[in-house]
């Protein structure tokens, strides 16, 4: 029952052979597959994390871009407003100056015209007065008399006219 013999050696050989067989055909492949799966999962996790980070980065970039675009548009609108204001002020000022100039010119024109009309009127009044005088004096007035009369009249009429303009 209890005897130690050559079968001890056989058992050890059997064990070693079994170990090698199991390692080659059972544990090796299975552990390999599990290792591969673990690696794959790790890789997928890593890539998912990478993708997430990239997405966040892009999101930040887009938000920045959006914000800067908003700022830019605001700036452009403000600038345009300012420019428009300046231009409008300038136009109004120009118009005012122009209008003032025109008004002045018109005033001056009117004044000139008035003076011209006055002068014409003066000569006309002199003629009329001359006519009236000659009609009154009849035929006997010589040209000498005419002239003296005329001057006298002018003087009188001018004096009265100077006191009461137009």
């Amino acid at each position: 029952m209890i005897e130690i013999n050559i079968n001890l050696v056989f058992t050890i050989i059997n064990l070693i052979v079994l170990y090698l067989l199991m390692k080659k055909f059972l544990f090796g492949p299975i552990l390999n597959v599990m290792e591969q799966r673990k690696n794959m999962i790790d890789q997928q996790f890593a890539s998912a994390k990478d993708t997430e980070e990239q997405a966040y980065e892009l999101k930040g970039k887009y938000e920045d871009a959006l914000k800067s675009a908003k700022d830019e548009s605001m700036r452009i609108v403000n600038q345009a407003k300012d420019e428009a204001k300046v231009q409008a002020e300038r136009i109004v000022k120009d118009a005012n100056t122009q209008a003032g100039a025109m008004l002045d010119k018109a005033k001056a024109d009117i004044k000139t015209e008035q003076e011209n009309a006055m002068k014409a009127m003066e000569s006309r009044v002199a003629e009329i007065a001359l006519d009236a005088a000659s009609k009154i004096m009849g035929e006997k007035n010589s040209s000498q008399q005419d002239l003296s009369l005329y001057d006298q009249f002018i003087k009188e009429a001018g004096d009265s006219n100077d006191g009461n303009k137009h």
Partner: protein
Amino acid sequence: MEELQCKTVFTIPVFGGIPVAESVAVTWVIMAVLLILSLVLVRNLSVENPGKKQILLETGVSFLHDFFKDILGEEGKMYIPYLMTVVIYIGIANIFGVFGFVPPTKDLNCTIGLALTSIFLIEYAGFHKKGLKGFLKSFAEPAPIMLPINILEVAIRPTSLCMRLFGNVLGSYVVMKLLEFICPAILPIPFSLYFDFFDGFIQAYVFVFLTSLFIKEAIE
């Protein structure tokens, strides 16, 4: 009484005849079964979508792997496949009596062989980790006075391992044979469940558990 003898199945007719015991022959059968099973089960392994069979297989293997990994740590990783092989072998050997074979672990030669490989592995692990000097030094630890006890341990550890396994299996074998002699029907079933399955697996567990603990101690 003749049931307790380890029968010689056949004799190799060289060197005046080498007897091959039943335990060795049954071990061959176990090896063949394990080889065929692993060849069949390991076919078509898939990394991405494992089938039911593969999940079951992976669960079992990773259960054993994690069990030894917890004890041995990262440093003793290289010893795990051997320990897994031994636990499977002893587990199957202990319940092989159910299938009408004589359990190989009933033969003292078989358990001595297992214990010798275990002690070789334990001492090799210490040697591999610490180098020759450290390995020799470890016999004088924690104090030089422990030297004789440490040396004795090299012999005691495998003896305790092999005798525990041998005694348990032989005892349960004898009890089962007696029960079958008294009442071959029904009665042996609960006893077989206890002696063959429960005790068989417990002994396999204890054997590899102690071996891995000793290895861990050696590589610490």
